[in-house]
């Protein structure tokens, strides 16, 4: 560790940024989406967030202890919280607590520490955890209690009413129901397995078309409005990151651009049920969180600008392909994981020539 210590060497300037600051900015940028998510889908998100954060910090502390590193120094970088928040966004708000718990365990141990900790991870921990959960608990991971009424299965999860709060609590902690700790028991069956894309793809094109014809206002707490508002708030958070220069424009712009391009290219009016409109593709929540928050994870993305462009285009393409021609329920996390694996290779391809470098690169003997 001796080479690993601070040494007294130029530059002596005050640091322009800190890892803690960078991570805090990411957390701040996620606040609008967190509010939006809670507003539309109940406090299930907050419960998941609490579980993942507390457990995540605990696991991180244990791992750091085991690795003989200063615990609080490493907890202070807040990266675990970012992972926890991102993972909570990916979990259905009504999923039982052990889903969130095993998710954060996977994210921390298999997503991060087996590779050597922050900065060495090959995959984005949150995406890895989400995909693992999806494979392990497909039913729980795709069940959503949707707000509002109408054609969706009803579930009163309004975060502002006591009843909604109890419902969310019971959904997250099923034992509460058995212990009858809440004044009113909620009937938990009959929930919709629906992220909008799946809904569009397999279930109810006619219903959706009808809903589209009716128009919607952003204050309606409908599932569709919810998804779209959430996507917008992710995009807003992403813009904050861009503005603060925490991320560069390369990855989000290429991901979104590619998805937009492909979905426009393959768009056939009247066939929304099969291919989806560009609007749907862009604002189906996960595109935005993926493009701005998950794909831009610095450790698992290429480092050069050219590399980032390639990486973004690849993600966009894979994402669209999985959605349209694949049969998996999720496309964003999968495509990001897939392309994460390529990023060392992309890095290798796109080493930039430094100034003064001879044209013919000298090979070492």
């Amino acid at each position, binding site marked *: *560790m001796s*080479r*690993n*210590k*601070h*040494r*007294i*060497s*130029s*530059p*002596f*300037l*005050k*640091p*322009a*940024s*800190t*890892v803690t*600051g*960078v991570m805090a*900015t990411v957390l701040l940028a996620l606040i609008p989406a967190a509010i939006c998510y809670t507003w539309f889908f109940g406090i299930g998100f907050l419960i998941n967030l609490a579980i993942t954060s507390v457990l995540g910090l605990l696991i991180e502390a244990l791992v750091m202890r085991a690795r003989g*590193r*200063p615990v609080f*120094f*490493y907890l202070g*970088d807040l*990266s675990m919280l970012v992972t926890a928040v991102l993972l909570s966004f990916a979990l259905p708000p009504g999923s039982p607590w052990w889903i969130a718990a095993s998710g954060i365990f996977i994210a921390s141990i298999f997503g991060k520490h087996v590779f*050597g*900790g*922050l*900065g*060495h991870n090959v995959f984005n921990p949150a995406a890895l955890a989400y995909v693992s959960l999806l494979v392990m608990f497909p039913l729980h991971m795709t069940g959503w209690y949707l707000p509002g009424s109408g054609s969706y299965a009803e579930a009163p999860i309004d975060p502002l009413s006591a009843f909604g709060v109890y419902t969310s609590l019971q959904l997250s902690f099923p034992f509460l129901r058995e212990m009858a700790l809440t004044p009113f028991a909620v009937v938990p069956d009959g929930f919709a397995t629906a992220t909008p894309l799946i809904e569009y793809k397999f279930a109810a094109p006619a219903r959706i078309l009808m809903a589209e014809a009716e128009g919607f206002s952003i204050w309606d707490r409908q599932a569709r409005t919810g998804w779209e508002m959430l996507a917008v708030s992710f995009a807003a958070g992403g813009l904050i990151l861009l503005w*603060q*220069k*925490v991320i*560069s424009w390369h990855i989000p712009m290429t991901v979104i651009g590619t998805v937009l391009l492909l979905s426009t290219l393959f768009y056939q009016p009247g066939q929304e049920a099969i291919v989806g409109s560009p609007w749907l593709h862009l604002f189906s929540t996960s595109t935005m969180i993926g493009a701005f928050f998950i794909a831009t994870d*610095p*450790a698992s993305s290429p*480092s*050069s*600008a050219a590399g980032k462009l390639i990486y973004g285009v690849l993600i966009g393409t894979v994402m669209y392909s999985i959605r349209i021609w694949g049969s998996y329920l999720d496309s964003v996390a999968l495509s990001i994981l897939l392309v994460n694996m390529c990023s060392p290779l992309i890095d290798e391809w796109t*080493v*930039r*020539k*430094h*100034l*003064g*470098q*001879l044209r013919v*690169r*000298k090979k*070492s003997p």
Partner: protein
Amino acid sequence: MSRISRSLLIKKYIKPFLFRLAGKPGWLSPIYALPGGIVPAPNKQVSLQHKIIGMPSSQLPLPSQLILPLKQHQGDDAVPVVRPGQYVYKRQLIAAAHGNGSVNLHAPTSGFITAIDFQLAAVNIRPQPGRPWHQSIDPRQTAIVIKTDGNDLTDPELPLSPLEVTPWQQRHIDELRQAVFEAGICGLGGAGFPTAIKLSASAIKTLIINGAECEPYITADEALMREYADEIVEGSRIIQTIVGAQDCVIGIEEDKHEAIKAIQSAIAGLESANHPLGGLPVVKLVLVPAIYPSGGEKQLIRIITGIQPMSGQRPSDVGVLCHSVATARAIFKAITDAEPLISRVTTLTGSALRNPVNVEALIGTPLSHLLQFAGFDPSALERLLVGGPLMGYVVDDFETPLLKTSNCLLAASQQDIQSVKASSVPHRDCIRCDFCAPVCPVKLQPQTLYFASRHQRHDSAVQNGILDCIECGACAAVCPSQIPLVAYYRDEKALIHEEADCGESSRWQALFEKHQQRQADNVVAVQQRKLEKLQDKLVSIAEGENPGKEAAVESGSPVTHKSAEQIKSEIEAAVARTRARKAELLSKADINKDGSQ
């Protein structure tokens, strides 16, 4: 995250382009954008409130002694030509250039030589693990110490130099070059490369005078340009004449408004004064964006000419020469006044000083003298830096002298620099955030270099261009993990050079020899211990005691028949044998040692 601006699109491209379209003076020739760069808070105004204060003057008296290291430049040490106790006059040569790239050294004032010492604590920094980077000062420096007499006398019998009689325009180029050499000038910007060597380059097309002082806090060059613009411009003409450059460009950062005005009027004055120009075109002024590190030699050359010397090339290999404005003025003084380099303008600044100011101090002045003059507040001091916060180095001993290359003295408080007390906290790991690559002015990939250096993968480091890193520190300044990247690079460079010096095979050879040496030492030590035991016995016998347990146990054996005398002589023989063996081993070890050297 806003203290260091990383978005420089407007500064680099749009503003120069628009100003060029609008035809603003100084922006007329196209400039080439430098990749990367940062804009740290400049903090320059504080030290520009007053004019440059000379030394000796009523405000700034002479220090009681001057310490002049023999090596203040790149190249071989100068050789002392005076002896302790001797009286020297101001401007007298006290150490002569000798060997490769050496530079003369002159007495900055009159006084007695008190010592020529290689053990002065002030210039011999104790090696401290953890702070190896005192760039300009090598360990084991020899320095000449002058006790000043306060009279500041010049030798009355010193003949006028021919250059003082005839204006420089009528002298031969070789004569001018020789005068620069005699004056002991080396690059005053920081690197300390002997100027005379640079001036002997041939086929120079463009001469660039570097007034782009980009590091925060440092204002020495700016103050110089404000007050001695004429001398700088004329000095530039002299350099241009010596090297025969077609163009002479003075590059200044755009935010130094007063300096720009001064230089502009100096150029205009030169043109109208109708000097015998020798057919050379006039000096041109070019403004460059105020971005760190546009004041680096190769960086400024690239900005102004668009030429990028290949890795390992000197700028003079591509027909460009770059001198700092301070060097230009030193050359002017050397040529017109025959004044050797005995003083320099240096910035005293930092929040631990009450009166930040620029002074023209004698070379060799102990830093404590200057600090005291500027109202030093030791309680506020975090670190004393020589140079700016981005490329300077730490000085622990305040008696360290001012060198020819010291352009700034930054008595930094916690406001100015990062507190470095936490020297035992490990830095965070690289999170591969890629903040560093976009700011690198050489377009390196700092994080790749970091991994290569950290794991000492020399091949990878060299392939990724570590030898082209100018150690500007831009990458480390923006790194959120606060990795001391530059320290890693310097370590790695040192290792690479070491390896290149001795080569892989000789490294193993050296290891092997060390191993042998250790073994030999071991054998010697064993013999030594035997010897000591025997001698102990001898002593005890001499004292008439029982020769020992063994003898008692083996009673009845022939040994008992031996008298004490016999035993003594036997032991003595053994001692002699052991001694001989030890001597033999020692000489062998010596041979080994010689072989390894």
